[in-house]
C-alpha cells in the first residue's frame, strides 16, 4: 500500500456513515468530514513515515474489516468476560465497537460522575464533548486518528467533577467477538481539578482476526490525578491500533500503565502534553511471542517549566517476535527546570526475536535535567547457572529470571485485583512451580 492508492476503507465509508452516532451535530459532521478527507487522501500510514518505519500496516488493506451492524452481546460468554472483568470496579463493556448496557454495571457510581457510552453522550453531554473531542487527538496527528474520528461507532465518555475522588476504578472492556469485524471507538476522559480516579482499558477478543482501532483522549485538570491502565490482550490474529492522547493542566498527575500482550500486530501511541509543574509516569511492558509485532510509541511534550516525566518500558521477545519502542521527549524553550527520565529495556529470548528501540530527546531549553537509557540483551548466564546450582532446572531458571524482569512492571499496578489478573497472565507465560504471590 502506498499513500497514493485510494484506501478500500474510504470507498466503503459512504455506506457506513449514515448510521454513525452524532450525525445530527454539525460540528461533529464537520470533524468527521475532516477526518475522512485526511484519511482518504493518505490511507493508512506507510513505512516511509518516520513514525511508522518499523511497523508495516499494509495487511489492513489486504483484508477489509467492516463495522458490526448490530450488538453481539449475547455472543459473549460470561466466564470469558469474567476472566478480564474486575469484581470491584464500575464496569463498561463495549462489544465489537458498541456499548452493551446488559453487560455493563455502574451501580453505586456517584451521581455527579458521568460514565456514558459515547453515542449516549453525543445526545446528553454535547456541550461538554464539543469542547473536548479532538482537542487532544488531532486528525493531523496521523491517519489512524483521522480514521478513528471519521469511523468511530461508539466509545465512552467519562467526566469526573472537581474534587471528586473515586474509590473504585472504572473499567472499560473493549471486546471483539467475531472475524473480520472493525471496532472503532472513541473515548473521552475528563478529570476536573483536584479530582482523582483510576480508569482501566482492557482490550480482548475471541480467537479471530479483527481490527480494533481505539482513540482515547484524556484531560487531567489542575492538581488532579488520573491513572490509566491499558491491558491489551487481543487475540493472536488481531490487529490493534490504539492511541492515548493526554493534556495535563498545571500540577496535574497522569500515570499510564501499558501492558501489551496480545495481537498479531499491535501499535500503541501515548502522547502527553505537560503544563507547568505537572507530572507524568509512563510504564510499559510488552511480551511478544511467535510472530507478534508490538510497537509502542510515546511522546512527552514538556511545554512549561518544572514538569517531571518518568518513563520505563520493558519488553520480552521470544520466537520470531518483534518489539518496537520509539520514545520522544520534547522540551520546549519555555520549559526550564524540566526533569525527565526515559528508559527502555529489552530482553531477547531467541536468536530470531528482534527489538528496535529509538529514544529521542529534543531539548530547546537550557536549564533541564534529561536522561535516557536503552538496553537490548539476553538473560545473564551467570544468573542461570547460579539458580541451577540451587537445584532449579534450566528452563525454570530462565522462566524465573524472565518473570523477575517483567514483574517489575506488574508490581507497579496499584489496583490489587488488576495486579493479580495481570500477574496471572505473566506467570502463565513463564511457568514456575510452587510460586507464592506474596513472595514476589
Amino acid at each position, binding site marked *: 500500500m502506498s499513500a497514493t492508492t485510494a484506501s478500500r476503507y474510504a470507498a466503503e465509508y459512504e455506506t457506513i456513515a449514515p448510521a454513525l452516532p452524532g450525525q445530527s451535530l454539525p460540528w461533529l459532521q464537520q470533524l468527521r468530514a475532516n477526518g475522512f478527507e485526511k484519511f482518504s487522501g493518505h490511507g493508512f500510514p506507510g513505512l516511509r513515515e518516520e513514525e511508522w518505519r518499523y511497523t508495516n500496516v499494509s495487511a489492513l488493506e489486504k483484508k477489509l474489516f467492516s463495522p458490526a451492524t448490530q450488538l453481539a452481546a449475547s455472543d459473549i460468554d460470561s466466564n470469558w468476560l469474567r476472566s478480564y472483568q474486575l469484581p470491584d470496579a464500575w464496569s463498561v463493556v463495549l462489544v465489537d465497537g458498541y456499548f452493551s448496557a446488559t453487560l455493563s454495571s455502574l451501580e453505586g457510581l456517584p451521581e455527579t460522575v458521568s460514565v456514558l457510552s459515547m453515542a449516549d453522550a453525543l445526545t446528553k453531554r454535547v456541550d461538554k464533548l464539543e469542547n473536548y473531542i479532538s482537542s487532544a487527538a488531532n486528525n493531523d496527528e496521523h491517519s489512524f486518528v483521522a480514521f478513528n474520528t471519521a469511523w468511530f461507532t461508539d466509545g465512552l465518555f467519562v467526566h469526573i467533577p472537581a474534587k471528586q475522588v473515586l474509590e473504585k476504578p472504572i473499567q472499560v472492556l473493549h471486546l471483539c467477538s467475531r472475524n473480520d469485524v472493525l471496532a472503532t471507538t472513541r473515548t473521552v476522559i475528563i478529570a476536573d481539578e483536584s479530582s482523582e480516579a483510576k480508569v482501566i482499558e482492557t482490550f480482548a477478543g475471541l480467537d479471530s482476526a479483527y481490527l480494533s482501532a481505539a482513540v482515547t483522549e484524556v484531560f487531567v485538570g489542575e492538581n488532579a490525578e488520573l491513572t490509566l491502565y491499558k491491558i491489551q490482550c487481543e487475540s493472536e490474529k488481531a490487529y490493534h491500533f490504539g492511541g492515548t492522547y493526554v493534556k495535563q493542566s498545571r500540577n496535574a498527575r497522569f500515570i499510564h500503565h501499558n501492558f501489551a500482550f496480545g495481537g498479531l500486530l499491535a501499535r500503541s501511541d501515548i502522547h502527553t502534553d505537560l503544563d507547568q509543574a505537572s507530572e507524568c509516569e509512563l510504564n510499559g511492558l510488552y511480551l511478544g511471542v511467535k510472530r507478534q509485532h508490538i510497537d509502542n510509541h510515546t511522546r512527552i511534550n514538556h511545554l512549561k517549566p518544572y514538569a517531571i516525566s518518568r518513563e520505563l518500558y520493558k519488553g520480552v521477545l521470544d520466537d520470531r517476535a518483534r518489539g518496537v519502542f520509539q520514545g520522544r521527549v520534547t522540551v520546549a524553550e519555555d520549559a526550564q527546570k524540566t526533569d525527565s527520565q526515559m528508559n527502555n529495556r529489552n530482553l531477547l529470548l531467541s536468536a530470531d526475536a528482534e527489538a528496535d528501540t529509538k529514544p529521542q530527546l529534543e531539548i530547546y531549553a537550557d536549564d533541564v535535567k534529561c536522561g535516557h537509557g536503552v538496553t537490548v540483551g539476553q538473560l*545473564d*548466564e*551467570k*544468573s542461570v*547457572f*547460579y*539458580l*541451577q*546450582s*540451587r*537445584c*532449579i*532446572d*534450566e528452563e*525454570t*531458571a530462565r522462566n*524465573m*529470571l524472565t*518473570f*523477575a*524482569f517483567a*514483574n*517489575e512492571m506488574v508490581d507497579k499496578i496499584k489496583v490489587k485485583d488488576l495486579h493479580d489478573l495481570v500477574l496471572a497472565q505473566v506467570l502463565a507465560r513463564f511457568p*514456575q*512451580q*510452587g*510460586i*507464592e504471590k506474596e*513472595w*514476589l
Partner: protein
Amino acid sequence: MLSIKDLTVNINDKQILKGINLEIKAGEIHAIMGPNGSGKSTLSHILSGKAGYEVTGGSVTYQGKDLLEMPPEIRAREGVFLAFQYPVEIPGVSNIYLLKAALNSIRKYHGQSEVDAMDFLTLVKGKVRLLEMDEKFLYRAVNEGFSGGEKKRNEILQMAILEPKLCILDETDSGLDIDALKIVAEGVNSLRSTDRSFVMVTHYQRLLDYIKPDKVHVLAHGQIVKSGSADLALELEEKGYGWLEDDKVAAQTLGTK
C-alpha cells in the same frame, strides 16, 4: 564421597588442571590452597558443573556416580553445594522464594512431597538466627544490594537449609571482616557431620583458624603439589607459596612424596 582421578581440564584449549587426584571420605574437611591462578576456582566450578570448561581426561565419581555426566541442577539435588566466591545478584527473585523452590526441587527429586509452608518457615527462621541475619533478608531479592559479608552469609544460609552432602566453599573467607568470618565459620561448623564432607578452596589460612580441616592440599600450576595435615596450612602461612611453586621440578618432586 568424592573421588577425583587424573582430572585434566582445558579452558579455550589452555590446560588449567593437569591431572588432579583427590579422595574425600564422608565427614572429612579438605582445604585446597594455592596461589592465584593455580586452578582452585576451576576445580570448584568443574565440581558444580559450570559451563565453559572442557574435561579432557580423568574422572570424578561422587557417591559412586559419574558427577561430570550430571547437569548442574542434578548435582545440586544429589547433594553437591557450591558456595560462590562471587554470589550472583538476582533482582526480582526473593530469597525465600529461591530457598523454597530449591528445597522443593530436592524433595521432588527424591520422591518426597513439597515442604509444608509452616515447617518451611520454622526451618528457615531458625537458620536465619543461627547466622545472625535479619529476617527481612528473606524477603529481599537474592543478594541484591547485599554487602560482601551479607552475600557470603546468605550462601551459608542456603547451605544450612538445603543440607547438602558435599559442600564446596569457594573463597568463602574473601571479603569478610573478622566478625562475619566467625559467624560464617560457626555456621559451617554447625553443619559438620559424619555423612557430610567439605571442600574449602582458599588462598589464605585464616578461615582454617575457625574451621579445622582434616587435610590440606596445595594446588599450583594445575596440580596438587603437596598434601598434608592442618599443620601444612600454618607452614604455608609462614613461608608463602613460593617454596612450593618456584620451579616445576621441585613441584613434581614434592608432589610425589
